[in-house]
């Protein structure tokens, strides 16, 4: 079965700093997704990456996908407190009715 590993699981950082969240997966896929979840809320779609080398940016967040390395990164630039949330990556093999495999999530706390 496909395994998706995120690291770190917990991240506490100061405002203004940069950091990267990593998402590794165990089998071939060129479809990867990033979601944000605020406490007590549902998942909000952030990025959809559908090919090797895909890079997408929204505000202070940038996501990239390297299908050969089976790795996606979510880079945070000059973090602000509003980015505090849990971030999940998910992989879709494109088979099996678009079943998603989720990572465990990275809980980000940005200190003012």
């Amino acid at each position: 079965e496909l395994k998706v590993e995120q690291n770190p699981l917990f991240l506490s950082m100061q405002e203004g700093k940069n950091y990267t969240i990593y998402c590794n997966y165990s089998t071939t896929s060129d479809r990867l997704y990033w979601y944000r979840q605020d406490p007590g809320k549902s998942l909000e779609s952030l990025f959809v990456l559908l090919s090797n080398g895909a890079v997408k940016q929204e505000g202070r967040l940038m996501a990239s996908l390297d299908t050969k390395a089976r790795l996606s990164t979510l880079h945070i630039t000059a973090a602000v407190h509003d980015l505090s949330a849990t971030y999940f990556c998910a992989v879709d093999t494109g088979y099996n009715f678009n079943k998603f495999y989720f990572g465990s999530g990275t809980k980000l706390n940005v200190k003012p």
Partner: protein
Amino acid sequence: SQTIHQWPATLVQPVGSPLSLECTVEGTSNPNLYWYRQAAGRGLQLLFYSVGIGQISSEVPQNLSASRPQDRQFILSSKKLLLSDSGFYLCAWGDRVAQYFGPGTRLTVL
């Protein structure tokens, strides 16, 4: 545009009681539908998915069941709830590109 609804938003039920959670999608036809559960502070566990009316696939054997009586309606049920059924239940619909999540139902079993 597409919209996904879930109800109820919160539910407190005693152990051994039945359960029915409903999910409906608007603005799309023949979507893939999914039920996930999230335990407190944890990741998502896929429970069921459906690619059409009456077609349900179960991912985790347990005391829950799902049904899809209409194209855009997905129901999660149980005859007798367990304490371990507590959690945040999320319904999602999917096209060929991504999955989109509903607002969720928070279930507490006492």
